[in-house]
């Protein structure tokens, strides 16, 4: 399967990428690792007229210790995040979630930025970023702005990023003493989660993220409140599906997903010792 023809622009700097976006507007698509976009283009579900390749922007491939957070450049590949000593020690939940993305070949090419901007409600990373209250830094024609991860996912495959903006960095609060657990339920080795749950408890405060429980990844705020109020794992997990509107597909209907959310949340809470 071959994508439809497109014009190819290789950006050599953030400025060149932004300029290409400004010129071509919604005709253009950014290409990072291509591991979400190219499968869609091969199926001709995406037919961009212009492809702006940002895969050579090595300036956006980094993992830095910046005071109270870890800063991860948008073009950092999954494999680098998964194996980073800094991420493992300060944001272990994110390293763990990343190790569940696809397979090694996918993790050698796919980037954290591409995964987040793709906005797939079944992706693994958003649950960890939601649970850890990450912040996303984007850059557009008028400069940089920060977006709280809670405000980032706006709809199915939709995020709050303008067509003229680039995601440049993901900031994850450092939590060296946190207890966390990542649970992914799927039926075949490389599949997306039928339901996935991230739980982190840091300084007595909990963060819980769910994937594939709605058209967007979301926080299980009712569970967070129950845990923060001292509920047991099994009590708190009862409200895991509250407020969610789970999708239905070949793998599972809404009721089964609600059941999975409760079971996986209970297991995750048990792991962290609630």
């Amino acid at each position: 399967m071959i994508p439809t023809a497109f014009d190819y622009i290789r950006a050599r700097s953030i400025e060149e990428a932004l300029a290409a976006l400004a010129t071509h507007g919604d005709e253009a698509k950014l290409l990072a690792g291509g591991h979400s976009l190219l499968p869609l283009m091969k199926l001709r579900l995406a037919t961009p007229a212009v492809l702006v390749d940002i895969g050579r922007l090595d300036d956006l491939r980094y993992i830095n210790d910046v005071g109270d957070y870890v800063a991860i450049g948008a073009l950092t590949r999954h494999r680098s995040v998964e194996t980073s000593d800094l991420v493992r020690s300060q944001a272990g939940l994110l390293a763990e979630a990343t190790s569940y993305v696809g397979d090694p070949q996918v993790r050698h090419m796919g980037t954290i930025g591409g995964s987040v901007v793709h906005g797939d409600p079944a992706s693994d990373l958003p649950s960890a970023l939601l649970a850890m209250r990450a912040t996303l830094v984007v850059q557009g024609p008028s400069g940089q702005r920060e977006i709280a991860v809670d405000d980032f996912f706006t709809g199915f495959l939709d995020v709050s990023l303008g067509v003229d903006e680039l995601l440049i960095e993901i900031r994850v609060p450092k939590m060296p003493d946190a207890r966390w657990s990542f649970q992914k339920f799927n039926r075949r080795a490389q599949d997306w989660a039928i339901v996935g749950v991230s739980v982190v408890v840091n300084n007595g405060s909990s963060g819980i993220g769910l994937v594939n429980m709605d058209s967007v990844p979301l926080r299980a705020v009712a569970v967070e409140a129950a845990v923060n109020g001292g509920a047991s794992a099994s009590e708190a997990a009862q409200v895991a599906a509250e407020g969610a509107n789970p999708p239905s597909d070949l793998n599972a209907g809404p009721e089964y997903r609600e059941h999975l959310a409760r079971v996986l949340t209970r297991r995750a809470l048990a792991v962290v010792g609630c």
Partner: protein
Amino acid sequence: MEVAVTINGESYSREVEPRTLLVHYIRDFVGLTGTNVGCDTSSCGACTIHLNGESVKSCTILAVQADGQSLTTIEGLADGEVLHPMQESFRQCHALQCGYCTPGMVMAAISLLDENIAPTEQEVRLGLKGNLCRCTGYHNIVKAVLHCAGASV
């Protein structure tokens, strides 16, 4: 567009459309047909090659993305008649039947050992989860990788 790459130590340059997939560049434009296309949907791993030393699925990469980079395919492993240790292990452990998945499986397995020189059986299974085999049931493939890593199997 001109795309120049190094494949197995040799330089190649070909004029291709930007939409040309890397696997087609390698097979159809360069003529190295050892790399197979199985699913064409990023699932089976038959098209696995090394891009700058790491396993990737060449059906899900544009040739232009690899411009200027260094690739290794299954043809680049053996030294004349002498098989690469991973190929030799596959042969000894009977890790192939029809052989269709084998080029990708071998490339994935070498990348796996590059990252983890002494994997456990479970780590081998997880590390090869991007590669499907319809014949062997995987058992002997896992054995071959462990054998190549020096484990007694």
